[in-house]
């Protein structure tokens, strides 16, 4: 009896120890993976499309926009540096939780000829291999121990010691103890996660001086079948077995190299051989669905403007080719609607509180906001080619160039009836002008624009100038965002470095 009591005490002691280690493990864990996949775990049974790939996918495709625009339910599984090898194992782990109707695989780095992330090609600096292993945690930490996860780790990592940190990540993360914050103690909920972006990440910043260098078209293909191509075969095989449609993509990059062109040619062959849809978004500069000068955040990653355009383009293709169901009216998909509403609210908030002119102009475009944009005579903004480029995206005309040659003033009323829409009515005026009786959604609108004065009056209310020249006489550019009732959501003016000056 005494022995039994002693043994019981030992067992109890170890139960307490293991429970507390479990708690410590949760607290110290880096939360990236949980944040990224929080919504995947919640919504996995309703996902129709999975997007696989690298950071190009992560920053290039916005599932919540896809739902808002087309009613397609999808999840962005992209991760920085993610090659096809990792995409395969991400898919295998995801398939334990869902069976999508379609898988979209981005094939950046198809030419990479290695699978072990802790070795890579064998000649990279140690920092690169360490970084590569560290990034894999984003896609692996979320999955509980399973046969698939163990197989994935054994396949992607060669060093048995490093494998351990994936099977029990406390061995890695316990050293975070000195940098944990109050957030690490809170349970992860939707607010803590990426919230509404469904795995995607938006890059707000604009790449100001992009070097757009596209390799020339070639008929050559990759000289050998790479390890990544072998894993693409595996993805195709798995999807074939489970009746999942596959779409191949190559997302836009401002700078591409010969091997990218050769990879695109090889992907075209693979798509033809397997009767697959291949969306090549890496054509020459002039043919792109994006504008490399306004839509990139660096050489190879899209910013939020580019993400909007690419998502819209891919969504249209998916709808057209696969007739994926539109779940927007389905009450069972209410949580998707919630996400879409959260996204809209957040974007409108950003629009009203933006600090940078270029970002503001980009957001007006992709959100389809109703806006009044005024540039006074001699405005420096007219001499900024990038500002003019953004304005041309908003209007689809060359009037801004006339304003530039006339040295202003310039007025744009982009009328979407106060709703977010990409089919606006455009009213544009260059040079000294006076127009009365324009029927905008605000009402009968009058515009007076001379070198030293400008005014926008509605319904002959001459006491209320939307441009408020008393306060904004010296401001080069004014942007007024309008709500559905014509109310002013924000009135932003920018200094000569295009940072916001004040907000009314």
């Amino acid at each position, binding site marked *: 009896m005494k022995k039994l009591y002693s043994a019981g005490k030992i067992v109890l*002691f170890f139960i*307490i120890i293991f429970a507390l280690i479990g708690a410590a493990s949760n607290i110290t864990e880096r939360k990236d993976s949980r944040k990224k996949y929080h919504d995947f775990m919640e919504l996995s049974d309703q996902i129709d499309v999975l997007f696989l790939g690298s950071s190009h996918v992560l920053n290039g495709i916005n599932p919540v926009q896809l739902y808002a625009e087309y009613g397609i339910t999808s999840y962005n599984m992209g991760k920085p540096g993610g090659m096809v090898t990792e995409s395969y194992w991400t898919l295998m782990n995801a398939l334990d939780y869902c069976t999508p109707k379609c898988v979209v695989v981005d094939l950046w780095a198809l030419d990479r000829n290695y699978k072990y992330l802790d070795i890579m090609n064998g000649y990279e600096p140690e920092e690169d291999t360490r970084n590569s292993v560290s990034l894999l945690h984003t896609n692996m930490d979320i999955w509980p121990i399973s046969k698939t996860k163990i197989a994935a780790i054994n396949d992607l990592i060669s060093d048995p010691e490093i494998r*351990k940190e994936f099977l029990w990540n406390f*061995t890695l993360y*316990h050293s975070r103890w000195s940098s944990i914050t109050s957030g690490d103690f809170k349970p992860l909920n939707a607010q803590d996660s990426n919230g509404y972006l469904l795995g995607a990440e938006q890059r707000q910043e604009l790449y100001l001086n992009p070097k757009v260098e596209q390799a020339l078209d070639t008929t050559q293909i990759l000289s050998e079948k790479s390890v990544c191509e072998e894993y693409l075969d595996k993805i195709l095989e798995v999807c074939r077995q489970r009746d999942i449609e596959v779409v191949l993509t190559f997302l836009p990059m401002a700078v591409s190299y010969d091997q990218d062109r050769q990879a695109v040619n090889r992907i075209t062959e693979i798509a033809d051989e397997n009767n697959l849809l291949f969306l090549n978004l890496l054509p020459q500069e002039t043919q792109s669905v994006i504008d490399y000068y306004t839509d990139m955040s660096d050489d190879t990653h899209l910013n939020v403007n580019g993400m909007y355009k690419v998502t819209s383009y891919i969504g249209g293709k998916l709808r057209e080719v696969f007739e994926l169901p539109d779940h927007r009216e389905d009450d069972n998909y209410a949580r998707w609607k919630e996400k879409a509403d959260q996204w809209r609210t957040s974007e409108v908030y950003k629009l009203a509180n933006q600090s940078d002119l270029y970002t503001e102009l980009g957001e007006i475009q992709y959100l389809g906001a109703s806006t009044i944009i005024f540039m006074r005579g001699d405005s420096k903004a007219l001499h900024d080619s990038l500002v003019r480029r953004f304005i041309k995206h908003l209007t689809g005309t060359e009037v801004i160039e006339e304003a530039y040659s006339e040295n202003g003033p310039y007025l744009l009323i982009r009328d979407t009836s106060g709703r977010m829409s990409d089919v606006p009515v455009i009213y544009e005026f260059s040079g000294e002008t006076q127009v009365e009786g324009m029927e905008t959604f605000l009402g009968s609108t009058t515009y007076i624009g001379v070198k030293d004065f400008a005014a926008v009056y509605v319904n002959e209310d001459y006491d209320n100038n939307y441009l408020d020249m008393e306060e904004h006489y010296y401001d080069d550019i004014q942007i007024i965002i309008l709500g559905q009732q014509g109310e002013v959501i924000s009135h932003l003016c920018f200094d000569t470095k295009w940072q916001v000056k004040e907000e009314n």
Partner: protein
Amino acid sequence: MQIVSIEFLFFFICTLVIYYMVPAYFKCAVLLAASYLFYGSQNIWYLVFLAIATLLSYGSALWMTHIQDNHKKVVFVLSLVMNLSALGYFKYAGFLSGGRISSLLLPVGISFYLFMSCGYLADVYHGRIIAEKNLLKYALFVSFFPTILSGPIERAGNMLPQFSTDSFRQIRFDTSQIRDGFVRMLWGYFLKLVLADRISILVDTVYNSPESYGGALILVTSVLYTFQIYCDFAGYSHIAIGIAKALGIRVMENFKCPYLAKSISDFWRRWHISLSSWFRDYVYIPLGGNRKGTVRKYINIMVVFLLSGLWHGGGWTFILWGGLHGIYQVIGAVLMPIRRKFADGLKLDEQSRSVRAVKVLVTFCLVSTAWILFRVENLEAVFRIGRQLLHPKMWELFDGTLYMLGLDRANVLVMLGGLILLVIVDLLNERGVIISKCIARERLWIRWPIYIAAVLFILICGIWGSAYDTSSFIYYQF
């Protein structure tokens, strides 16, 4: 399998369960199997070498019991030569060849188990013990897994009797004994993972490019290294003794608050006791000890310490380190009468706290200085460090440089807190207060939270796993 690893803990728990489940008759075989499994997991060729070395010393000892004096001496000398040649070949080939042979695969723990074998052969030759007939018992003595990699260098006279079936029969499943072993292991892991490996990050950064730092910072890191090597080696010894204790086996103590020593000779009675007593019993005394005059005694001391330096590694820095300790001892002995006269003249009470404190401080400084030789890669580095000491750059201690050596502020605080705890524990030990025993006497609701907090603290704040490259135990390489 590293002794600081999750695998080892699982291995140990499995061994413990099986060990207490099998009858006494099989316990020796279970421990031997576990020991061979553990050692073989380092490298299978190491295990082959260990088995051959075991058979040779086992056979030689048995042979000595069957032959007469002169032949016995020949066999004894031959077996010693074989053991020491193997040690020399693996450990000193690079040094002796001037670096021309550099890639020999040194079996880990070779210095420890070959010294144990040599000690056993000497004991049998001098008739202090009877040659062991049971091969399993002898093999277990040489390969006992808690001690094989870093000691303590046990004596056959202590261990072999414990490996008999009769002794195993006395060992009962006793939770308080297992708990005591567990607590001892915890303390060892604390010293190794929380202190030694944390300090090593800082020390390595400075010692890898001493020219980038001022003398004050080098001095501080040198003092920290003094603690690092203590925590590292004593940590391993505590773990080994704790494991053995949980198995019901007594292993000799290896450290007794060495930095509270009042002289260098006192230090060597407290530091790596199993090695220093080995040299005393098997080298110093056979050379004549202090029985053949003062000069011979000093020569013997120098020989022992030069050999001790050489034992720690094939390199001039180790030899110099050993030599410096020998010189400390010789000078200490030569100056003893003068020191006594000086103390009498000043009417100093040798037993007073202040005098003892000064002695402890002076001894600590001497030992710390010698550790610099132990830490540096080569003699040139000693001169580089010496040059830097002339430029103290005191401000580096206060301008945040300390936090840019691989440890942030929180980690430095843990390190300092841990060192304070270590000093307090050693001071209490010196006064005969054993904290683990005090805790063990407390009620369960006080005891358990302390143990649990200690486990969690070590797991969370210890330097282990993938985040940092856990440096191996310093003493593995010896």
